């Protein structure tokens, strides 16, 4: 009887310790997230150009490797009913990437003017939207509970809107893409740490606050790149200074680099740490990947070789940045379209 009371007491103490530990975990997660976001906003507002150069140099390559690792972890060894979905997804990624890279080359070869360029961008954006709509529809068809045929109505409305201002639509993608990482993090928390999700949503709600603070503080800041530096011009152009000519380029670069930093933080810190806390392998250990674990259906050697090659590419990217930062930056942001596109099917798989 006494022993039973001891056991009950121990269990209660254990539950209480567990609950307080969980609360501490949630609080630590929220505090670290807020600190990171605040630091990113501060640095982005204070020295946007330098912060952009440093973050892209340090994190652009590694975050692509982590994304690849994350996607491979979510790629089933047996595609089954998802075969067509993944076929359309991978074919779309390859085709849209080639078209995206070819667009400036074709424009240069045929000496395109503004009208032809607008037409080219409009066609590429339309293909992207229709591809996304097809993926949403196919994903919806994989369950009888879902009817996602609304995707085409929404897609056609978006294509229509795109044709009214194609360049503006592309710029919208530049600013929206970093936010997709936050959706991935939400889905991951919902699966693995549902108790943390409330704190996460509260942190997420502060993001517009930080963006608002940046806009309020920098709305009439002097334009960047007045000294005609080629790299600064590239960075401001990427942030949309030529499209939004009435908006301070300082503000645009700050906002963009802030969102990019949040994006890098999610892929390089939040998602890998969450996976490790759950008991999964460290990111550099690939034994737990379905395509490696299931030797009969997977391709263990190919996947290992792919990840090692990707790591070598990251190192090569650093060397290229050191050799010629502006050209490497242009090349990187062209090829990085692959990861932007690849996020769509894997996010849909998590919905």
């Amino acid at each position, binding site marked *: 009887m006494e022993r039973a009371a001891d056991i009950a007491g121990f269990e209660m103490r254990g539950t209480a310790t567990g609950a307080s530990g969980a609360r501490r975990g949630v609080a630590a997660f929220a505090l670290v997230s807020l600190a990171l976001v605040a630091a990113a906003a501060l640095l982005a507002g204070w020295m946007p150009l330098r912060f952009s150069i440093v973050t892209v140099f340090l994190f652009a390559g590694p975050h692509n490797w982590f994304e690849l690792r994350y996607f491979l972890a979510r790629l089933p060894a047996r595609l089954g009913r998802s075969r067509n979905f993944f076929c359309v997804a991978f074919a779309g990624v390859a085709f849209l990437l080639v078209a995206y890279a070819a667009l400036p080359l074709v424009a240069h070869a045929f000496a395109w*003017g*503004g*009208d032809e360029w*607008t*037409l080219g961008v*409009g066609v590429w954006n*339309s293909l992207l939207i229709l591809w996304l709509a097809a993926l949403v529809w196919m994903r919806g068809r994989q369950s009888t509970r879902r*009817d996602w*045929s*609304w995707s*085409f*109505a*929404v*897609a*056609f*409305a978006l*294509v*229509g*809107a*795109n*044709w*009214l201002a*194609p360049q503006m639509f592309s710029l919208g993608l530049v600013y929206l893409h970093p936010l997709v990482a936050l959706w991935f993090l939400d889905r991951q928390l919902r699966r693995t740490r549902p108790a943390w999700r409330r704190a996460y949503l509260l942190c997420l709600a502060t993001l517009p606050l930080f963006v608002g603070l940046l806009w309020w503080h920098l709305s009439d800041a*002097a*334009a960047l*790149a*007045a*000294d*005609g530096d080629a790299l600064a*011009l590239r960075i401001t152009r990427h942030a949309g200074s*030529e499209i939004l*000519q*009435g908006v*301070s*380029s300082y503000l645009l670069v700050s906002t963009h680099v802030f969102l990019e930093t949040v994006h890098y933080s999610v892929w390089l810190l939040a998602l890998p740490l969450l996976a490790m806390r759950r008991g999964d392998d460290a990111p550099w250990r690939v034994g737990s990947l379905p395509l490696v674990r299931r030797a009969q259906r997977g391709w263990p050697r190919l996947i290992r070789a792919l990840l090692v090659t990707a790591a070598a590419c990251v190192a090569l990217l650093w060397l290229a940045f050191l050799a010629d930062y502006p050209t490497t930056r242009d090349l990187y942001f062209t090829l990085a379209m692959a990861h932007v596109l690849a996020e769509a099917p894997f996010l849909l798989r998590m919905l």
Partner: protein
Amino acid sequence: MKLRLCCLSLALFAFALPAFADIAAPRPTPTATPQQSRRPLPAARMLIESRNDATEARLQIPRNMLRQLHAEMERDSASGASAAATHSLRPTQTIIAGVFLSLSLAFAGIFIARTRARTARQAAAIALFIFAATGALAFKTFANARAPEPRTLDAGSLKLATTPDTELNGVIRVEVVDEHNVFKLVVPATTKGSR
């Protein structure tokens, strides 16, 4: 049935407004000067650089900007027919946008008619209502509104190149370069006693 009637009424409402929206714009006065034109002028970055190795002042004009300015001049001097030809993409954009927006409405209607899920149907009907109402209000607002004024560009640190009461002048050599969108004024550096 009520829902379908509601959707039909909304569609009628959405398509009726554009019919009233396309009232011809007032004719422009023939005496309008280029300064009075509301068309946004091309914008580019300007850089003033002082160089020790320069012997004469030199204005570098980017080739793409020169091409753009040339097109603008041709457009100004061309007749109405040829001016319409240079704007050929704008009607194309409008037509494609119109076709896809109409397709969107049609597909939304098909979705509402076909779906069995009550929630999805209600959500789609609400979305369609918002879409139609926003579209109608946009038509009403923008139908014959004047083109927006070009936004004021930020002159950056160029303002430091002159003082309010002093005018700088001199002879420059003009050259066309391949640099994109940056006008550059290279000025020989001031040496002691050269002023």
